């Protein structure tokens, strides 16, 4: 074949344009997905927030569609593994499906966390997740001369957009966050000391303890830790605490991590109160386990069930009981720092479920800890 200028130009155009007809024109001619069950138009604020999302290139790290195998993404368990449908994107222009997952998928992110978590996270993602590599968006705040930071309108819009990711499903989740937050605000509010910045005393109030208890299944209320609090367990627990929890709960365990101090309402939980850790209504190993596993809706406490194994969580729970005795300040937590939690009479009355003693199935409620707890080095049974 002899190539001439004409045959090269015309031939090149014919070949490519015929394929373009198939792969570019045909889709818009024949493929018109209708809005899906969760798709909804954006509000003005959400639309502005979407532009902030675009401008800062969030989509270079966060995809926005769930595949069948993606159970490890935020909100997917809540939506019962709902897989993205073509109609989900009906109101989006441009679509930001995303090609990379340097961060989690965000298509079901709306309502997974409350607003205060979002603000803390945008200010510095390591405040709420020390492992995150997301950039700081502290430039979306303004700082006044006294050093107080306030979010800009851009940031408020961005949060509005993010809380809507997942459309109608996100709205449902978000509504639950809002009502749960009101529950905790009421439970703590009256008790907190307004003169002490960051006063967390309200956390130990009866109302707040009961509010915390209310999100835990009853059978966990008095459940004890099946993992013996031996040296290994405590040290592993401390490692897990330091790599996951300090942003909010603080290096001293008093709930004064940077995220708490600046953003969170309610504060992260204070583990330093010995009385509370010995017989608090909501501080049984079972309740702590449940809170770590599933998080606490309405507060910044996020679920860790995906990343921590069952044993990790029990180790972490064991470690928390050493904090009032210096488990965090000492180089290594030791077994004599460990506090054995016991249900109070009030909790025993509240709880209908019998105490489960490990290895024996259910037994009578006992104020004595099972053998295995007192002699952690012995064999399990």
């Amino acid at each position, binding site marked *: 074949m002899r190539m001439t200028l004409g045959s*090269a130009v015309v031939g090149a155009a014919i070949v490519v344009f015929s*394929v*373009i007809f198939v792969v*570019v024109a045909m889709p818009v001619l024949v493929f018109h*997905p209708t809005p899906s069950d969760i798709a909804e138009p954006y509000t003005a604020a959400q639309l502005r927030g979407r532009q902030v999302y675009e401008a800062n290139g969030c989509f270079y*790290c966060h995809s926005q569609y769930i595949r069948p195998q993606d159970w490890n993404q935020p909100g997917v368990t809540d939506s019962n593994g709902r897989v993205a449908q073509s109609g989900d994107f009906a109101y989006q222009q441009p679509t930001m*499906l995303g090609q990379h997952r*340097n961060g989690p998928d965000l298509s079901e992110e709306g309502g997974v966390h409350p607003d205060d978590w979002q603000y803390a996270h945008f200010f510095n993602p390591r405040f709420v997740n020390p492992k995150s590599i997301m950039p700081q968006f502290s*430039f979306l705040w303004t700082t006044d001369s006294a050093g107080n930071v306030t979010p800009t309108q851009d940031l408020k819009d961005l949060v509005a957009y993010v809380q809507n990711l997942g459309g109608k499903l996100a709205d449902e989740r978000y509504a639950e966050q809002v009502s749960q937050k009101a529950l905790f605000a009421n439970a703590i509010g009256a008790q907190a000391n307004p003169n002490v910045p960051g006063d967390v005393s309200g956390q130990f109030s009866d109302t707040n303890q009961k509010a915390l208890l209310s999100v835990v299944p009853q059978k966990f209320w008095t459940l004890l830790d099946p993992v013996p609090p031996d040296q290994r367990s405590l040290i592993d627990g401390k490692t897990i605490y330091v790599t996951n929890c300090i942003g909010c709960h603080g290096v001293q365990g008093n709930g004064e991590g940077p995220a708490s101090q600046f953003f969170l309402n309610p504060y992260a939980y204070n583990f330093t109160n010995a009385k509370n850790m010995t017989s608090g209504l909501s501080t049984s190993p079972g309740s702590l386990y449940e809170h770590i596993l599933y998080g606490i809706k309405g507060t910044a406490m996020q679920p860790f069930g995906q990343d921590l194994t069952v044993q990790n969580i029990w180790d972490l729970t064991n470690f928390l009981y050493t904090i009032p005795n210096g488990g965090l300040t000492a180089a290594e937590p030791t077994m004599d720092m460990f506090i054995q939690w016991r249900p109070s009479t009030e909790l025993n009355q509240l709880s209908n479920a019998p105490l489960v003693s490990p290895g024996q199935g259910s037994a009578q409620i006992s104020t004595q800890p099972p053998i295995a707890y007192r002699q952690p080095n012995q064999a399990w049974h």
Partner: protein
Amino acid sequence: MSSATGTIAPPRYPGYAASRRMSWLESLSQPNSAARNFIYSATFWVAVTDTIGLVTSAEFVDPDLFGGIPWLEFGRVRPMHVNGVAFLWLSMGYVGVFFYIIPKLCGRPLYSERLANITMILWNIWGVALILTLGAGMTQAREYAEAIWPLDIWFVILLGLTAYNIFMTLATRIEPKLYVSVWYIIGALVWFPNVYMIGNVIWNPPFGALQGIDDSVWQWFYGHNILGLWFTTGGVGIAYYMIPAITRTPVYSHLLSLVGFWTLGLFYTMVGQHHLLQTPTPGWLKTVATLGSISLFVPVLTFITNIFMTMRGNWQKIYESVPLKFIITGVIFYLITCIQGPFQATQSFNRLIHFTQWIIGHAHLALLGAFTFILMGACYYVIPITLGRRIFSVKLAEAQFWLMTLGFLGFFISLQIAGLIQGACWMTTNHSVYWCLTAIRPYLIARSVSGALMVSGGWIQLYNLYKTATAGEFITAPAPAAVEAGGL
């Protein structure tokens, strides 16, 4: 099998450029000045935008490094890097080399050297505007199509001016035969502006996007075809010129080049959807894409066979010629890219590596390993030959080659491992994305370190070309033939 090469004459006036002082304006109409100016600009941009790439990669290792500086935020520097290397380094470099090749193969000077230089100036201003707007967060939020609407239009005009110049040169050529490289350059210039306009939905100014999921289909038609119909087409065209010219061997087979050219246009255009294999988009598009991707073996293997057969008996020349060394290395990386590619385009393998750093490795294998290497070789070929000067330092050029090669291999291998770890971590443990990030951290550090080697390679080229232009030793007859053979 017949062969087809253009006639390659030695430069008419060795050393003419420095023979007398010229006014600046006059210098803009000197033969080959546009080719050189494009290459100098591209070299400047590769140094700068690779450095931006290094910043991008450093933010993976220490996300608080530039914490709180808006224009250095990851989501803003990343498009600066990607658009910079794609539209300023590779694209400007390609156009520079085209402006040298086309007159050579047409037997006449470029249609308008002055227009070409004006294009060059406008292109550089466009580049500055692009980087600044991206830094300011002005973007259309579609990968490779971030440029805002006025810049889209501006870019189409730049391409139009380039194409006009080259087609006018072709229309008034003296050499009647069209050599393989010319077809590829014609293809690239016919396809790219169209792909760019369609992909950027250029008639829809505020968004530059469609509504709904069709937008993704269009975007990845575009995202893929700037790679296939521009970077690949242009790069293959350059390799088809440089390798026969440096080895002074005609291309092995005209037939293979023909098959390669037409199947490239046919199959590359089909495959955009292989970037969206797991999205809720029409299944038939995915099937077309996967079949097209596998069929891409045809243009790739015809090209590779043709080049390697041309190299028969010439392999020792890669020790004598730095440009050839770069270009052959690039061709080998191209082969590896295109072995990887079809596997990635199958559903089963895609499920493992989609979303991971593997893809970043593949993207760099293609645009850095293959086409940056080919273009760097071409720069080292075109600059000395058109200046009539020897390259300032062959040692530095060699050093650049090894820094680039070793740096690239480190970069590539660490990302491939990281990608497999990420994919396996998500598939088998159900851990969150954060958890898996800690597992790949060492590889991300290795990526930055080896990336730094490549960045220094870019700066070396800038220094070396600058010194060549200002202090390179003049070539006196009969040396030009040796220079033309890439002997530097």
